[in-house]
């Protein structure tokens, strides 16, 4: 749908600033996650350090988006699709921020792993990382493009990631018993697997907010009704 401009130009500017901050935040979180995983797979401490450093800017943007959103609510009293966009942006940014936190967690674990000989089991996280990253990217795309179909598809993919995490947990726990020398290393991989699974959860939350923004439909907690 082509969205025409508001009569009040400053309203468009404020909404645009909110959207741009959110896009920048999502871009940074994506980059941070990418760097953290590369830092793990390529055993590159610099990439891990960069991933950790990104988190501060992501946190700042979360606060900025809250402030932008409050300002739009206060100054322009948005309704209908404008209101949904603002509410979604305010709800969505903490999830993006937590994706940044997960990237930091992964980077910190990767640095610990990099101090020891490589573990071949790290490869079992590659498909998980690809799955979690694609969910996160698609959730942001769904929000930006107001694509309900894409958002719904993200929600449907979370179970697969949960299954991958369970599978990784099982294998890594077995390894921990079999090879107690590498207990610490396997534990770090386990935690990274869990962080990737959490990225999927945040992507699902973002996708749910994308559906609300685009279609005014609350798909969270299906089966739980809200009294009128």
């Amino acid at each position, binding site marked *: 749908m082509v*969205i*025409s*401009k*508001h*009569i*009040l130009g400053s*309203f468009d500017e404020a909404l645009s600033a909110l959207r741009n901050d959110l896009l920048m935040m999502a871009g940074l979180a994506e980059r941070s996650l990418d760097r953290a995983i590369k830092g793990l797979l390529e055993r590159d401490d610099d990439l891990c350090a960069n991933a950790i450093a990104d988190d501060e800017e992501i946190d700042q943007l979360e606060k900025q988006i809250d402030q932008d959103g409050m300002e739009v609510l206060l100054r*322009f*009293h*948005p*309704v*209908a*699709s*404008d*209101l*949904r966009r603002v509410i979604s942006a305010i709800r969505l940014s903490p999830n993006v921020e937590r994706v940044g936190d997960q990237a930091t967690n992964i980077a910190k674990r990767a640095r610990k792993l990099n101090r020891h000989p490589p573990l071949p089991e790290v490869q079992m996280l590659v498909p998980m990382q690809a799955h979690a990253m694609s969910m996160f990217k698609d959730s942001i795309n769904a929000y930006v493009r107001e694509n309900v179909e894409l958002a719904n598809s993200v929600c449907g993919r979370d179970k697969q990631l949960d299954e991958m995490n369970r599978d990784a947990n099982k294998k890594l726990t077995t390894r921990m018993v079999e090879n107690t020398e590498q207990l610490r290393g396997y534990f770090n991989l386990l935690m990274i697997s869990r962080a990737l699974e959490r990225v999927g959860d945040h992507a699902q939350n973002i996708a749910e907010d994308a559906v609300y923004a685009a279609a*005014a439909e609350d798909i969270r907690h299906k089966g739980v009704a809200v009294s009128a």
Partner: protein
Amino acid sequence: MENLLMPTSERIAEGGVEQLAEVPPNGGTAPASTFQVKNMSIWYGEKRAIQDVTMDIATNAVTAIIGPSGCGKSTFLRALNRMHELTPRTRMEGTVLLNGEDLYSSTVDPTVVRRRVGMVFQKSNPFPTMTIGENVVIGLRLNGVHDQKFLNERLEKSLRMAALWDEVKDDLNKPGTSLSGGQQQRLCIARTLAVEPDVVLMDEPCSALDPIATAKIEELISELKTKYTIVTVTHNMQQAGRISDFTAFFYLGRLVEFGVTTSIFTNPKERQTEDYITGRFG
């Protein structure tokens, strides 16, 4: 069914006035409608101001009419108590039923309709030569009620309902025009309530008031809807969102969209509604 042709004094004598607000709407089915408007069209001379509007107005609820200037919202409101007929060369087609009774039947007296369906205007208009007390009961007096005890009781009751009693009870003999703008508007609401209408129509009742006076009127509207059906025209979108249960959007004389207020303001179905309420019109 209340007889529209029966003067207020006779209804009082029969004890009918006290029962007016208790008229069972639509035989008790939910959601009950006070008004059923069908295919309403209104012309001022050659100009068609309202085009084929059909809608039911819910009982004991606030219905807000919104839309840009000239969209026909005030004409529609006035047609609900036949006040638009005061404008020369006016013609109306369609039907308006008030609790099932045809307001436009040839046997119905428009002045009686206006008593059953009261109106509060944009600018407060207390009678300048009358005291506060006289302003409130003038409608009853003009309808032949002279029982002073009854008038005093109704005076206090109406002023209490209009949330004005505590502020003016010691000044009832002062001119109505001595009150502040917000108080004058509540005085006009008390005057409307004094004849115990079924419906209160409000045409931008807060547009000339400051935020405090506006809040008092809005609070009053929320309280009054438990006893009356209220239809209000407003240009203030936030006000419509705050006070109304249902919202109707008019554009170029047509009813574009009508629904539950929260739905209209979060997820309107029509593009024109979305463009208007989000400020993208024009």
